[in-house]
């Protein structure tokens, strides 16, 4: 631990500097507790109904095929979104490092989607994937590969993967940036030593880069897991959960249950499930970054 810098402050300073954030954070925790309380009430409609009914909302939820479908889709997101974007991000990062000066030209081209709103991405990709008038099928037909055209978002089997494809397009640059920084942090001597030993770029990638970027991998996976648990906008804009309920995820189901169907108690129960799943990642992550910051 670093020596404590010498600048005198008193209790009043602590209060002055930390009271605003303390109130906000306390409010957030209060709202989490409030959601938990509502999840155990039979609250239907917008006006408050504080009728305690224990775990009944959870029982109802666990009996719904729609809930399991949403949860399944969230898990699909975690696997099919995180692994490809992380791997692609790492490969691109290494490619950029090898490309030398061309890096500054290429980097923004992979990163710019990150600046866009999911609603923009959704509007754009909904058209890309449109089965009749969509861009992808249109291009396939015009280059004589019409037989490869797919129903995309019109097919319950493919639709979730289509959404994930749009997210990969948007988030690969994020993983790439984290990996770029991580590769830069690897001491140059290790690369030099490997080169002197005659290692090829491929071998360096496997034996030097991959083992030395585990921390970036952890950060990427943590951030993308949280993203997979809260995904909402892309689903809303591109498929609105459809066809049927085939692309619904917990975040979407929660919104529809609470705001459209006004099953507030049930919606709160879904929120609590999201909370539990997210906490499994967020709490260890917060612990880790706290330890890092203070040493």
């Amino acid at each position: 631990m670093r020596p404590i810098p010498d600048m005198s402050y008193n209790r009043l300073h602590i209060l002055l500097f930390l009271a605003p954030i303390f109130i906000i954070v306390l409010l957030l925790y209060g709202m989490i507790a409030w959601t938990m309380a509502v999840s155990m009430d039979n609250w239907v409609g917008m006006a408050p109904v504080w009728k305690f009914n224990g775990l009944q909302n959870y029982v109802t939820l666990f009996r719904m095929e729609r809930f399991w479908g949403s949860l399944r889709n969230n898990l699909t997101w975690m696997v099919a979104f995180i692994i490809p974007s992380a791997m692609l991000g790492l490969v691109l990062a290494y490619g950029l490092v090898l490309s030398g000066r061309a890096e500054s030209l290429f980097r923004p081209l992979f990163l710019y989607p990150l600046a866009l709103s999911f609603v923009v991405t959704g509007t754009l990709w909904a058209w890309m994937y449109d089965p009749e008038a969509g861009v992808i099928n249109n291009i396939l037909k015009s280059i004589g590969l019409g037989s490869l055209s797919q129903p995309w978002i019109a097919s319950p089997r493919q639709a979730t993967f289509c959404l994930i494809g749009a997210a990969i397009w948007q988030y690969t640059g994020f993983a790439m940036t984290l990996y770029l920084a991580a590769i830069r942090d690897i001491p140059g001597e290790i690369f030099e030593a490997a080169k002197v030993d005659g290692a090829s770029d491929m071998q360096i990638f496997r034996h030097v880069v991959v083992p030395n970027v585990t921390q970036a991998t952890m950060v990427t996976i943590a951030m993308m897991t949280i993203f997979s648990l809260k995904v909402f906008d892309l689903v809303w804009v591109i498929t609105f959960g459809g066809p049927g309920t085939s692309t619904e995820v917990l975040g979407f189901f929660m919104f529809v249950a609470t705001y459209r169907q006004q099953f507030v108690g049930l919606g709160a129960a879904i929120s609590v499930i999201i909370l539990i799943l997210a906490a499994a990642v967020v709490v260890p992550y917060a612990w880790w970054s706290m330890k890092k910051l203070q040493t």
Partner: protein
Amino acid sequence: MRKINIRKRLSKLPLLFVLTVAALVWLLPMYTMVANSLKTAREISRAQYYLPPRGLELQNYVTAFSILQQGLLNSLLVSLPTTLIAVFLGSWAGFFLSRMRFKYSQTIFFATTIATFLPYQVVLFPLTKLLVTLHVINTRPGLILAYLILNTPMAMLITATFFEMIPVELQEAAGLDGCGPITFYWRILLPVGRLAIISTAILIFTFVWNDFLIAMAMTQGPLAQMATPVLAGLKGNYAQVWHIQMAGAMITSVPPLLIFIFLGRYFVSGLMAGTLKG
């Protein structure tokens, strides 16, 4: 020596080729959006989306803008104050937490990190009820309040991560000269830590401008609605009218894209600090 250099450059060609192909794939959606936003309805009906536009049909932008106008104004009037206040309150606390050591600083950091990274859905409904209780639901001040509650902790974490890197000596020297925390924050930290402040501000502004969930849950109707829900509505009302949709998507993307193009460095450093990897 020169020969080796040339061979080295040639050996890079396959790599550059692969990167170029990947970059083209990444650009294709953007190209589609720009190209088709400038086509006439007749050109669109020919369904040759990969072709560049024949002329510049700016009327699409006029149409899309007239629909998005109020939403864009609302987005601006919500994002800017939110950013200013969140970055001030966040850096105010982030400074104290990262530069002063006291008993509970770790606990506060830990609790704030959790609150920051939990999905919005966990507090969405109570937040709605809070705005209803305060009679600011479906108004711009209400949206500002909601975004402040959600983004100030994030601003604190990012600035704290940045401020960690400021040399201790600076603070020691100031301390010896009798400079207290408040003077230090205004006189030394803000100027020295401008990178932190700008990066955080850019990130928060982009988050708020791009957000959809809060904007959807807290507003109804055009009065206070931000640009993102209006754009999503445009997709419903102008189904299959791709050129208007694309023009609308382009207009909504202007502020974040301008930030990315001109302040990309800050955007990236804010993003990295936002993961708290330090």
